[in-house]
């Protein structure tokens, strides 16, 4: 049972209009294992994790989640199944406050009828302040608009949210972009801590040092195909740089 991969990807293809972005990807993600996903720009990393998180539909191929074949119709399905994602782009609503952004789609409610109810704004403010402090970010107030934050502050809020809502699987697409030194360390610490919590993770980064530091296994992609899939202990920085 514990040997069965939590996510199994078989023969995954993705066609954008005129671009064959994934060309038959086969991958297994195991419980309690953090996979570092590396690859050239445009290799298809984001495409792969977008499919896993339900934001895009595969053109062909199958995904098994906990052994069952799944077909996510949207991010909501994937989140329901327990996949939490930090996207490379597009993860914040700039016209809304930090506190609201933290909880979009998962608002704490004072009471509700049929899923719709009154927001518990106090709890939202308190928890978001806490979550942001947890990533060492200094923000003025949870009521500031995300659109008025600096690049790194915005990324920090996205990280804080994902850390707050830990889930069965964590996917992080270049989470340390825009982040300052301290915050980057926090994020790397978080990724490492996933293993202790038994949460499998997929960590995309162009910084091979970071990837080697945090992952158990490294998967390298190039032009829509997996070109290397080894445990960190079985490979070396040079081998990875070589295939890229």
């Amino acid at each position, binding site marked *: 049972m514990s040997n069965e991969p939590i996510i199994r990807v078989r023969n995954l293809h993705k066609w954008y209009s005129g671009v064959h972005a994934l060309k038959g990807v086969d991958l297994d993600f195991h419980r309690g294992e953090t996979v570092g996903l590396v690859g050239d720009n445009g290799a298809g990393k984001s495409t792969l994790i977008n499919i896993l*998180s339900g*934001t895009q539909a595969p053109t062909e191929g199958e995904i098994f989640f906990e052994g069952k074949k799944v077909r996510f119709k*949207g*991010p*909501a399905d*994937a*989140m*329901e199944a327990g996949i939490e*994602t930090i*996207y490379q*782009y*597009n*993860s*914040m*609503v*700039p*016209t*809304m406050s930090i506190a*609201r952004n933290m*909880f*979009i*789609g*998962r*608002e704490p*409610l004072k009471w*509700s009828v049929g*899923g*719709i*109810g*009154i*927001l518990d*704004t106090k709890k939202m403010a308190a928890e978001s302040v806490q979550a942001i402090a947890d990533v060492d970010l200094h923000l*003025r*107030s949870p*009521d*500031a608009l995300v659109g008025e934050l600096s690049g790194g502050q915005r990324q920090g809020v996205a990280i804080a949210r994902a850390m707050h809502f830990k889930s069965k699987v964590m996917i992080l697409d270049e989470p340390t972009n825009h982040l300052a030194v301290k915050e980057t360390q926090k994020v790397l610490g978080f990724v490492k801590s996933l293993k202790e919590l038994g949460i499998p993770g997929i960590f995309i980064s162009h910084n091979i040092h970071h990837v080697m530091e945090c992952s158990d296994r490294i998967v390298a992609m190039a032009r829509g195909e997996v070109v290397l899939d080894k445990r960190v202990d079985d490979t070396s920085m040079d081998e990875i740089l070589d295939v890229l």
Partner: protein
Amino acid sequence: MKRFLKIYLEKPELAGVAFLLLLTVVFQARSGGVFLSAANLQGILGLLPEVALVAVGVTLLMICGEFDLSVGSVFALTPMAMAVTLEAGWPFLPAFALGLCVALLVGLVNGVLTVRFAIPSFITTLGMLFVARSITVVISGGFPPLLPNGAFPKWLFVAYVGPGDMFRMSFLWFVAIAVLVTLLLSRTNFGNWVRATGGFLPAAESMGIPTKRVKVACFMICSLLAGFAGSLQVMRLGAPLPSIGEGLELQAVAAAVIGGTALTGGIGTIFGGIIGATLIRVIDNGLVLSQVDANWFKMVLGALTVFAVILNAWLRRKAKSIKVETGK
């Protein structure tokens, strides 16, 4: 003090309030005191709830990032459906319910077509503007039926209430609904979803919000309010003309924008939409009292509308440049 000023002036709807007060003073003077007379206020307060309700719905939908040009037609269709069934002998409640269901259905169709085929709601609802108006004419058979006297509970919808008969029941309905929608938008998770959907659709989607359903719901609320507003008007005036509500769509959008709602979605408040609608009504009324000649009427109306928005933008900019750390 500075801080207080700043925070308040930054709210777009409060710039609208300021302009409203200014206009009130001007019109009061120009009309020789008639503008604020009880009878005139009574007149304004008769029509206001109806257009403001439409503005409330349109504002909500615009915050959600969509448009509805068909509100004017629904405004006519709902009461027509009600009147025709009333004339056919139905009791009030089922007839009224039927009317509102028709409105909901129009909203549903608008919403489903828009999100299902991913086409601009501008087009869906422009088509619906024609379709709903056409159905209104068809079911009326061309000749508007009279609303049989006593066929509907006047006391519940249009009777005068309050001190000096200043208000109508419709005003109370409007206030209740406005408060409700305001709370829905600002205090519930649904409201959060609406803002997120209109603010940045890809983010809202990737956060697992059922954006399609949120949009359809907003379309339906918008249509429902327009239909209800139309019914109020018809009950007040006693007869459903198939032509009522023509041009209402642009007026409602203008009200929302004057009140600070962004055409691109995500930004705005219900209160702002109401202020916008009130401004439009007040300008209209004040111009009549100022005896502006027919040919010039539209010019002043147009100029004042633009001026309202310019003032609004200017005040906000001023407020922003006040140097106070708000701790935000």
